[in-house]
């Protein structure tokens, strides 16, 4: 719930477009987390769809900042296997996530870097390797990404428990 945005110390944001096949990974992770985990009181998990940047601007400028921000998204990264879940540092975000026809409306890397370097927020970016992003609108995750949703939730749970 947006009304709790500045009250929680851990924010988990799933981003991506559910209309674009495996790009819907982030929202699917949030859905799975909410249905299958009892998230602690200080955690807010939200499907941000393609709207995350609005919220990031507010977080960047707010007096009340979270301790941990976890961004969950899909990625097409060379050398990775479809469905592989991994963490990437901000400075290793692939170019195709930052520009032109990126399908993801991913938060601008600049803004994430600002959050990381100029505030006390710890930013974690958890991604899964896509099997395929369709050329045109087509909802639904691939089998590989459906499995990745479970793996990502387990990893997020570990992140949360370290802070909690």
């Amino acid at each position, binding site marked *: *719930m*947006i*009304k709790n*945005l*500045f009250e929680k110390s851990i924010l988990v944001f799933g981003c991506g*477009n*559910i*209309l674009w096949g495996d790009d819907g990974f982030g929202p699917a992770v949030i859905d799975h987390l909410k249905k299958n985990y009892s998230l602690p009181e200080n955690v807010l998990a939200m*499907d*941000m*769809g*393609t*709207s*995350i*940047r*609005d919220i990031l*601007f*507010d977080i*960047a*400028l*707010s*007096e009340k900042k979270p301790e941990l921000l976890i961004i969950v998204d899909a990625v097409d990264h060379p050398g990775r296997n479809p469905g592989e879940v991994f963490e990437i540092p901000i400075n290793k975000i692939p*170019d195709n996530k*930052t*520009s*032109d*026809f*990126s*399908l993801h*409306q991913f938060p*601008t*890397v*600049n*803004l994430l870097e*600002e*959050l990381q370097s*100029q*505030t006390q927020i710890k930013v974690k970016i958890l991604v899964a390797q896509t099997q395929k992003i369709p*050329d*045109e*609108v*087509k909802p639904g995750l691939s089998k590989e990404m459906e499995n990745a949703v479970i793996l990502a939730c387990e990893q997020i749970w570990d992140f949360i428990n370290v802070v909690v």
Partner: protein
Amino acid sequence: MGKVINIQPITRIEGHAKVAIHLNEEGNVSDTFLHVQALRGFEKFCEGRPVEEMPRIVCHICGICPWAHHLASSKAGDACLGVTVPSAAIKLRRLMQMIAYVGDKLLNFYFLAAPDFVIGPDSDYSVRNVVGIIGAAPDIAKKVVHLRHLTAQILEEFAGRAIHPTFSMPGGVSKPMTEKERKKILVSADELLEFSKFTIGFAKENVFPKYLDAIKSIGVIKVGHIGTVTDDGALDFYDGKLRLMKPDGSFDDFAYDEYLDNIGEHVEPWSYQKFPFAKKWADKPVLDLDNPAGIYRSNCLARINVCDKMATPAAQAELEEFRESFGRPAHLTLLYHYARLIELVQCAESMVQLLHDPEITSPDIRVKVEPKAGRGVGCVEAPRGTLIHDYETDDNGLIKKANIIVGTTHNNAAMNLSVKKTATELIKDGTYDQGILNKVEMAIRAYDP
């Protein structure tokens, strides 16, 4: 063989974009290409879906303008199914639209545009950023965050969801407003109106005068404008008729469902995004700096150019002051930022007016719809420009055909032209620096793509 300068990402704009500036052997600009993200295949995806589900689906087209898509789609559905929406439902749709737009316009001015103006266009990016704003104007930054959060909270608490709205549908809206809700939202609306007036005053006094040279020089082009006006010529974000104005200020008005007679959609091989153009002015858009043809702009500057007046008193006073300084139509690209603030005032005033309207709490908020064949063109003014949803349904109310033109797409040709103008004027003999490239970005950011 010349060189290509690539700028990517265009920091802080609302969509993803990149610019390629091609230099010739002398190091001068030979051509420029602006690529903006496009959602391909959406219209095909819509086919076969029940029209009443469309307002919920289309919110996923754009994470920044979900409410505009939500409402344009609802209006197209109303028309396809041939229903007359109760007046109270229209007022509630308008109210939610205004609340969403106030939040959006505050975001745009303070977080996207302000780093250029408050901190300075030639400053290093390490300080010319969002966090830099805190250092430059901490009290204002705090207030903006508080008020933006307020708009999102109102949308979430009253309409159910702020990000992927489900409030509106063909035939009306999902719930009425209680008196208790009205009073609570009105307190926030008054605060938002007060801050909107402060914002335009602050910008006129502290921001725009310092950068008048930049405003007069960056990305200036002379093309047409499009926007929605009421029958008496007032700017309206929700409903009215379309007005297409030529660069000289003459214009034609037409009904939404006549848009295909007036707007063509050109395709260029180097861009997935369509290039809408004014059909009656040219056979296709011509991106020639000296003789542009068929090109028009959308979004706030275009809207305040095409309207005869604003719909609310404080916004009207601002428009009059603006026109005294810049005339009608105003062509300076960076005036988009000024125009956006005039619109901010209208949105905030409209919000308060709607909340004082006794009908806003009427329980009559929806009529029953039955599946039927029809065509509906739903159009609203989105924050980023004129948004058109055109649907055809079959006897079962399923989408047979859809055509969508989003606000930023209308500006595709104009943005390309502004980029070309800025780059051509500033990059000479292969010499350029970060300040020059940021000015190219500023020309794009003004349009808020």
